[in-house]
Each structure stands twice: as C-alpha cells, then as structure tokens.
C-alpha cells in the first residue's frame, strides 16, 4: 500500500530545481527589473527585499532539513529502530525556542522596514523639484508639468540625478503608477491626489506599467520614462514649447474616451484638467494639507481651512 520507491524524489528539491531551470531558460539579466534598480528608491526597496529574503532563508532551510530528517527517521516501516514515544506531548524548552526564534528574525526585518517606510515618505531636500502631475485615463497616461507647462501622453521625461515629485490622480478606474527600475508603485485614484517621489541615477529609458486592472485596454498601459541630464531636460522643454501645440479642452475630452493611443506631446494644457483640490498629503509627514493648483503653481493649504468648500 505504501510503495517505498516514493522516497526517491523528495519534494524539497523541486523549488530550487524550478528556479534553476527558470533562470537557465530565461537567462539571468537585465530583464529581472526588480533586481536591477536604477534609482535610490528602487535601490533601497531591493535592499530591504534582500535582507528580508536572507532572514527567511534562515527559517526555511532549518525547517526543510528538520522535516526531511523527521520523515526519514520516523517512517512506519518494519524494523525501524528510532524511538517511539506515543505520549510525548510537549516540551517547554523547545516550545519557548520557537516562540523566540521568529521574534528575533522578525525584529531583524521590522526595524529597517519601519525605518525605510518613514524614510521613503520624505522627499529628499531638493531646491524646487520637478513636479509631474500624473493622471491615469482609461488606458492611457497623461503627464502634466505644472512648472514647465508642458504635457505628454504615455511617456515622460525627467531630469536624472535629482528627485522628481509625481502627483497621482485618476480620471478613470484606479490604476497604479509603476516604473519598476525607479521604484515601487502607488495607486492613482479619482478624487484623491497621492504623492510619489522617484529619482534616476543616470540617463536612460525605463519602462513603466499600470499594476491595477482597469478594464479592456489595461494591458496596453505601458509607458516609458526617459531620464536625461538636467540640461537636456531644459532643452527638451524648450523644444516642446517651440514645436508642439497646446492641449485644448477638446484634446483632453478625446483623451477621456475609452481607448488606447500612442505618445503625444503638448506645449501647455488647460488648468482645470488636474484636481485643484483633493484629499491631500504633506511632504514631511506632519500636519495635513490640501493641494491647490492654479496658474501660479501649487500651494498647500492647511486642512483646517477646508470646511468652507
């Protein structure tokens, strides 16, 4: 009934095997975007991932080994000489050990987790960061530069080597704004504006995608973020102002249609296409503000003044 040959293929080899095969077939390389960060945010997130994974290995390996030994040693087969203690039902010391081990390991993960969570929520000091207002539309991305007065669709250009502040909202179902090599994702939601800062170390092109399902054309919501030197960035802005037309309200309404489009560039945009007010955020984790956009740029208004809206 219990065939002995089953022992030949212990399951504990399956995972590593699958991983190795996977790596061989696909070729380890740049395609593992999460393992090849191109900016400080993604870098610190990867760092944490590695720390936590190592801590996990510290539990996984002993558990697997222990399990294997137990099963092999205490199989119910004739002539097994291992001890048999049918009534052994507890051991205080052992049990205390495995309350403690996880606590220690988790502390190792928890401390940097909390630290990084708070650290990432603060925009590093930068004089006048480039601000990009991101709106997810049904199956396309709209990027507006309130400081530069340019707008793009389905691609963005950022200066390398300095933090960029993205302000995210949606005029569509929820999506997430994600450029894996630059950093983790954040939701775009209607009636809310959320902040996200990212930075690219070097000039380069990094792909981004939406991570939250939003309907039919969702899988086409790829976009590229071009990181260029700050000077090239200024030149790009200048060039857009010279060559592109401003976005009209009609253009915007066309973008609201449920479809996918290619890349587009505009030299300006109507001011009321990004929320003037919404549930807001702070940049330093204190107090509560609301973002006000107008022709002069952005002001942060304390929440307490909000009641007269």
């Amino acid at each position, binding site marked *: *009934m*219990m065939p002995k040959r*089953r022992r030949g293929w212990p399951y504990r080899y*399956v995972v590593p095997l*699958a*991983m190795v095969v*996977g790596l061989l077939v696909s070729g380890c*390389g740049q395609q*593992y975007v*999460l393992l090849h960060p191109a900016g400080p945010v*993604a870098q610190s*997130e990867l760092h*944490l*991932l590695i720390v*936590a*994974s190592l801590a*996990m290995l510290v*539990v996984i390996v002993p*558990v697997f080994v222990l399990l294997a030994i*137990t*099963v092999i040693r*205490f*199989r*119910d087969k004739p002539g*097994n000489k*291992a*001890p*048999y*203690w*049918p*009534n*052994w039902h*507890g051991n205080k010391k*052992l*049990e205390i050990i495995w*309350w403690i081990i*996880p*606590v220690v390991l*988790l502390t190792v*993960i*928890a401390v940097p*987790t*909390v630290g990084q969570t*708070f650290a*990432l*929520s603060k925009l590093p000091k930068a004089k006048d960061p480039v601000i990009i207002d991101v709106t997810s539309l049904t199956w396309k991305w709209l990027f507006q530069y309130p400081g530069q007065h340019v707008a793009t669709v389905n691609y963005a250009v950022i200066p390398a080597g300095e933090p960029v502040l993205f302000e995210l909202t949606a*005029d569509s179902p*929820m999506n997430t704004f994600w450029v894996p090599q630059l950093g*983790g*994702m954040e*939701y775009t939601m*209607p*009636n*809310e504006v959320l902040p996200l800062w990212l930075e690219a170390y070097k000039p380069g092109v990094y792909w981004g*995608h939406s*991570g*939250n*399902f939003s309907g039919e054309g969702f*899988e086409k919501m*790829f976009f590229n973020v071009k990181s260029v030197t700050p000077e090239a960035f200024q030149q790009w802005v200048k060039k857009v102002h010279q060559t592109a037309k401003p976005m009209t309200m009609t253009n915007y309404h066309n973008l609201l249609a449920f479809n996918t489009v290619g890349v587009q560039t505009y030299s300006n945009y109507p001011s009321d296409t990004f929320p003037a007010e919404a549930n807001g955020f702070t940049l330093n984790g204190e107090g509560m503000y609301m973002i006000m956009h107008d022709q002069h740029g952005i002001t942060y208004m304390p929440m307490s003044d909000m009641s007269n809206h």
Partner: protein
Amino acid sequence: MPSFVQYLIRTLFPHDVLRPTELGADVMILATGVIIVYYLTKQKKWLYLWNEWLTTVDHKKIAVMYLIAAVAMLFRGGVDALMLRTNLALPTTPVISDLEYNQVFTTHGTIMIFFMAMPFIFALFNAVVPLMIGARDVAFPRLNAMSFWLFAFGALLLNISFVIGGSPDAGWTAYPPYTGLLFNPGPGENYYFLSLLIAGIGTTMTGVNFLVTTLRMRAPGMTLMKMPMFIWATMATSALILFAFPPLTVALAMSLFDRLFGSSFFTLAHGGLPMMYVNLFWLFGHPEVYIVVLPPFGIFSEVVATFSRKALFGYSVMVVSIISIMFLAYGTWVHHFFTMGAGPAVNAFFGLSTMLIAIPTGVKIFNWIFTMWGGRIRLTTAMLYQLAFIPTFVIGGATGILLATVPADYQLHNTYFLIAHFHNVLIGGTLFGLLSGMYYWWPKMFGHKLNERQGQWAFWLYFIGFWVTFGPQYLLGLKGMTRRIYTYPLGFGWHELNVISTVGAFIMGAGFVVMVYNVVWSLKYGEKDLTGDPWDGRTLEWALPSPVPEYNFARIPVVTARDAWWDMKQKGQTLANSLRPEDMRTIELPKNTPVPFLLGLAFFVVGFGMTFQWWVIVAFGAAGVVASLVYSAFDYDEHKHVGAEVIRRTEAALGRLQG
C-alpha cells in the same frame, strides 16, 4: 408578444457578450440538465431526491451536498485556471479575448475562494464537528440547511452569469469605480454582488451555527482544553466569519446601490471615495484568508497525530496560537493596499502587525513537525498532503513576510510574485488541507476508503504540478509582470517562464482528473470500512460505525480525556462493547423541512430579478422570502422521535450491542 421575446433574448443574451465559449458552456449546462432530468425521471428518483436531500436537515447529508458542490466548483475554477494559463503561454495568439480573460480570472478567483474553499470547509465542518464533540447535530439544524441553500443558490446565480447576460469582470476584489455603471454597464457585476450577498448571508449563519455548536453542544466532560484541535479551529473560524462578513456585506451593498439606486459612494462624480470600498473589502478579505486556512490547520493537527500514532505536540500552545492568529487576522488588512498612500505610520503599523502572525503560525509548524518526531509515520494520501503542506506553506508564508515588508511591497504589489504567494498558501495550505481532510474522513462519510494508490498518484501530480506552475511565477514577479493581463509584449523575457507555468497547470489538471477517477472508482470498488475506525483514529468520530447512523450516538458518551477515543481504546472501553440493549432511549431529531430550499430559491429569484432590474420578479422573490420566514415562525413542528426499539435494532445490525 414576439417583441417581448426579442427583448428578453436581447437582455439575457446581449450580443457583445455572447461568444463561442459561452455558447459552449451554455450547451454543456443545458445538456447536463437534460441528462439529470432524464435520469431522475427514469429512475423514479424525484421523490427520493426531495425527501432525502433537498429537504434534509441532517448535518451528514448537508456535508455531502457541500462536498459535491465544492468539487464541482474546483473543476469549474480549475478549468478557468487552465484557460488563463493557456492564454498566457500564447501571448502572440491569445486563445480567448481580453474581455473573456477578464471574466475568467474574475470567476476563477471568486469561485475558488467563495464557492470552492468555503463550501469545502463547511462540508468537513458538517461531516465531522458534531461527531467529534459527541452531539446529535449542530446547534441549529434548520439554519444549517438554510445556510447550505443560500450558498448553493448564490453559487448558481454566479454560475449562470457565464451563460446569461455576461459574467463579472472586475476581479474577485471588484474594486470600484471600475465596477460602476460608467465603466461596467452590463449585468455582470450585479451578478457578482448579489451572489456574494446571498451566499454571504448563508456563510454568516454557518458561522453563528458552528460557533454555538462548539460553545454549547459538547458532550459532558469535553471541556475547552479537551477539545480536539479541529474543534478549536472550527470555533476560531466561526468567530472570524462573524467578525469578517459584515464589512463585506456593507461594501457589496454600497457598490450595488451605486449601480442600481444612484447613490454616490464610489463614483467619479459627487465626491465618491473608491478607497473606502478597498478598506471595507479587506477588512473582510484578510480575515477571509485565515478563514480558509484555519480549518486546514485543524485538519492537519488531527491527521498528523493519527498518522504518527502519537499525541499532538504542544496542545496548549497550539490553542494559544490559533487564538492569537484569530485576533491578529483582524488587525492586518491594510497590507493589501500599502500602495494607496496611507501615511507611513499606518503602513508601518500594519506591516508589523502582519509580521506578527508569523510567530503563532511558525509555532504551529514546529509543533506539527515535533508531533511526528518520535512517532510512527504512515505515508497515506492524507498524510502526504500534510507533508507537502509544510514546505509549501512555509515558502508561501515567507513570501508573505516579504510582501509585509512595506517598501518591498511597493515593488511586488499586484505582480506575479503576489500571485505565487497566495497560491502557495491557498493551494499549499487550504487546498492540500482540505484534500487531506477529504481523504481522511471519506470512510466516515461514505463507508469506504478511497483507493490509496490512485490517491497518491493524484497527490504527486498536484504537488509537482504546483511547483512547476508557481515556482516560475516568483521569477515573473521579479521581472515585473503584473497580474490580470491577458497578453504581453515579448521583449520583457516573460514568455518562457509562462510556458513552464502553463505546463505545470496542466499537470495539476491531470492530478484533478486522477482524483475524480479515484473517487468514482472507489465508489464501486473501494475497500469497505467495517470497523468504523480504519486509521486507528484518536477522536470520537472514529468511535462510530461508518457511515454514521442518522442519530450519531446511540448514547452520548462522557469524555474524560483529550483524545477521547484513543484514550478509551487504551483503557479497553469502547462504545461498542459497553452498550446494553436496555441502555437505549428514544432520541429526538430535527425533522425535514422544505423551507430552507424554498427560501434559497426565493433569494435566487430576488437576485436574478435585481441583476436585470426586473422589479416584478424581485417582488415575487421577496414575497417568497417573507412567506418562508413567516411560515417557519409559526412552525412549531420541528422534531421527530426515533424510538428506542428502532435504535436497538439498528445498533444490533451494526454489531454494536452487548449480548
């Protein structure tokens, strides 16, 4: 008249959703229906069906119905999975369109969680809990039947959506505003909300029922600390159900109101806050994943002790850990939306609370291993699932911890890394646990064993298939592949891994086929269980004959030890040899009633009517609901009596009487 018929057809089968696969499903369902009707009529089984099954309140029969439904839904969800996987292996020539793909992953997730895992759990609760605690039935047998029929009709409502009108397509999480009328005008999401609301009422009632059963119906002497672990798991699960389902009900209702009655909870205009749905959904959703994993934990605790022929290691610590998991489960929900911009304090808090769950869970893992240490391990199918569960779940748990590491989750959220995580815990934990329980308790439910050799084949196919499917998905996550896409460009290096993953899925599918073969074969040729105790079990259900007579225990035993039956066997006292003919008493049992079935049907009518906003039909259904409730309010005829003489004869026939 013809115009009305045309209207009906146009609404029920709108052009834009009626596609070949649906037509195929349509024809299949119709054909199955015809075959069933033909068979029933030919065998003159209609009355039998009605008397013995549709109106039954016997927990053992309800268990069987739950089990059939669960396995059917595993098939349905599994076929969905194979469709998903096929598409993902062929990114350049998708087999099903994006619209269909969206419906398929939605029904896959919804069915697997709500209509496969949940009823499977309730099947085992119903089959085992009253027997384990030495009771005649659950606390509220009629409520139990109502729960079942509400579940069954809820499941039916979701399943007909594939054929009539169009399926939901917003994922099992159904985030607004995508579920709003602006983006999703068809009836699909109505189906989703209504079927979950109806099934949810049933589930909540099941929670109440089993909580009270385990709190109040235990045999004398079975104090809290003498309860089998499975009973602890039942208790904790039921409590979680009580606490978790209300937020879901409210979230679903809000979405439904937005769609049907013009409220502005989650809409783009009028200040809607879609994130509130997310908040309420996960207030339910996270406890839900523990609802589906705690019962398997209980099952494993029984299985591992039985097949190691050894007492469970660290019982009281196991109790403490299950209770703390229950509590902690309620305080971690934000980890599903770390990326929705709640402040760093919120994220840090919920990241830590999530990690805390690893501690009691880890304790359980170690205790299971040490239960085997110093035992004699028999590698039956049930035990193999247990052994596979440990490494699979530990990996799944560990990747869960990586997701709980907040900044790492910013990267991993909604990628295939997440998909792999939750299949690791849902299949490695929940499904393996439930299958283990099925193989373990099958003899008790049906009176024969499942063939071991075939069972082990199915096991190995599942287990190997599992890792071939989901191992590569971790790598896909690291390559940035996001979930819920029906196709993808080739440049990202996602294709090869997806092909491997798809191959794995088909291996699992083969496992399922072997399992079904195993069940069908064993129904005919399976080894009969004549002793009632085929595994040398430890808990009270093994004291009874298999299958169990309607009244369960001829006399309720008094419990004096933790593993009650094991203890009795050690002391040489067994129920069989100590019952004398004159010990028999008349037994009061709950009486069959058609109300639960009719109530479920009425709710179904309401749900169907509301899906299409046909208020006349809704009114009919609502009248049915009210009528059922009023009828049962005035119905005092709840019990029947089984005479002592009948019991004496039955027990004697089972060879369980002295002299």
